[in-house]
């Protein structure tokens, strides 16, 4: 029988931290020790922040983004371009695009991609809500910003068919040479995609 190095409270803390993505048992132990050592500067403020977040964070009823208010800050921002809806698979993708500051319009978080193998159909995603939003007056473009995977592309195809008669532009992200990329190092598939979607200068 293995001997315990600490009481149940510490063991519980380590076990919970160990369930975080990217943390194994070893790094969870290190994180727990760090928190305990910095009880006032870090542990209490973190606990308070987490309690408050757990209490207040809600999914935006409009776009599916996470915020403490619904509709979320982005949906309420009057400076944003209401004619463009950028559709993403997950909230992580929304954050990535926001970090880059490249989307002037609004977002729509789908909550995943269509994948019969994983039991995910149209009703498990927020496609219905997207169609409803896309048909609102003032919306002129829906940008499908999905991963270049089979499931991402199938979902894009499905949504573009759903929005076929909405009278709006449906666009997708370009596939091809990344910024700073060297042709010599690109795989054939990426090169072919880049050639296929070339643009006149």
């Amino acid at each position, binding site marked *: 029988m293995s001997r315990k190095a600490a009481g149940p409270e510490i063991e519980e803390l380590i076990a919970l931290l160990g369930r975080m993505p990217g943390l194994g048992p070893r790094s969870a132990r290190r994180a727990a020790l760090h928190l305990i050592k910095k009880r006032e500067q870090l542990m209490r403020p973190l606990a308070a922040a987490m309690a408050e977040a757990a209490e207040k964070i809600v999914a935006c009823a409009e776009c599916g983004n996470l915020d403490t208010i619904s509709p979320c800050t982005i949906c309420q921002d009057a400076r944003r371009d209401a004619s463009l809806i950028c559709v993403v698979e997950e909230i992580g993708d929304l954050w990535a695009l926001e970090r880059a500051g490249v989307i002037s319009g609004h977002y729509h978080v789908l909550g995943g991609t*269509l*994948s*019969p*193998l994983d039991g995910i*159909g*149209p009703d498990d995603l927020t496609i219905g809500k997207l169609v409803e939003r896309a048909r609102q007056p003032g919306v002129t473009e829906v940008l499908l910003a999905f991963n270049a995977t*089979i*499931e991402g*592309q*199938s*979902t894009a*195809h*499905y949504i573009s*068919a*759903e929005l076929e008669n909405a009278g709006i532009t449906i666009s997708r992200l370009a596939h091809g040479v990344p910024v700073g990329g060297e042709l010599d190092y690109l*795989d*054939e*598939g990426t090169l072919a995609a880049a050639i296929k979607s070339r643009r006149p200068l």
Partner: protein
Amino acid sequence: MEIQRIGQLTGVYAISASCQFGTQLSGKPARHLYLTRVSLSDFRNYRNCSFTLDEGSAVLTGRNGSGKTNILEAISMLSPGRGLRGASFSDLACLKGAGGWTVSAHLSLNGDHVTVGTGQKPDVARAGQSSRVVRIDGEQASSSGILGDYLQVLWLIPAMDGLFTGAASERRRFLDRMVSTFDSAHRTRSNQFERAMRQRNKLLEMGERSERMFEAIEAQMAEIGTAVAAARIEALERLMHYSGTPVANGHNGFPHAVLALEGVLEQALQERPAVDVEDDYSHILASGRDRDRGAKRTLSGPHRCDLIVRHGPKDMPAALCSTGEQKALLIGLVLAHAKAVKDARGGLAPLLLLDEIAAHLDDLRREALFEEIETLGAQAWFTGTDREAFAPLRSRAQFFDIDDGTVTPMEGKDLPGPLPMRVG
């Protein structure tokens, strides 16, 4: 290049692949790609094993179960994919070891020296994960696909003897492996197609009625499936283009094979542009939904393609040929592939792993094979239980004795051949 239709298989895309067997040997051709050192640790029955060699071919002899094929398998791990047995990476580890394994080799590539290595760490292997580490000159590579930039490895093993009589899926795998040596993206595309098809099969199984769901997945299948079929056709063209003209009767050497692809997309691509074929396949999938629902799987597509092989000189299906003829046909096919790879890679002949190959060949054919490999300039790795079968290679190859996980270079009196006489 010649594209012909064969027999009643109307519309079947056919090209002939054959080997020229020159007998004129004007000196030793330069080998541009060869292994100079091979090291294994905890791989199959090898705990720690390392041996060096020069540019010549290698002959590994030893008793059954001594580990000859394991050496070939180790070398095959230096190419993308899962090696010549198609084993799981976690099954490659020595049972007495910690669970991990490594294979590394020094190779001479156009005069440069490169170290390539691959393996699985014990913790990764124990977790049954399907990933492996690849290192080129000590630097970790992002994927095993990069190995194909350094060395190409082709093999012929006894398990392939029933290729022509066995299931179409075996021939398709054989074909796709050949395609991958010319088109490194083929493997990825095939996997993507497989994934999309599994999504569609799931819909069929669930009795899904939403046409739109089907359309979304079928659009991906059509695009990728057409690319898969086109790559196969291109590879077959290369095989023919690079393998020379048929030998009239293949007297001492190996008969030429007439190859064809039988498949809905492969057939359509010879008559129509790829864009149209993609549309056609979408329609085929759409109109076949009811039929496919009954079968609960997709019944037409590149996953049903078959490689049709005919014995050229006899003009008969390979499956109807004698066992010996089938073996000769297969060797001819692998040699033709090696030549096509060599020319596609600017004269860099691939490594050839030939497991138990001499046993099935008579003296004349064996000699023809050795000469063919010599002309090709490939470093070939032979295995066998009978050392004497390799006597003609006495002065041209390096002999190793394999005994229960050890590799010992042989010289002098241990070598096969008429001189000096061996006892026993």
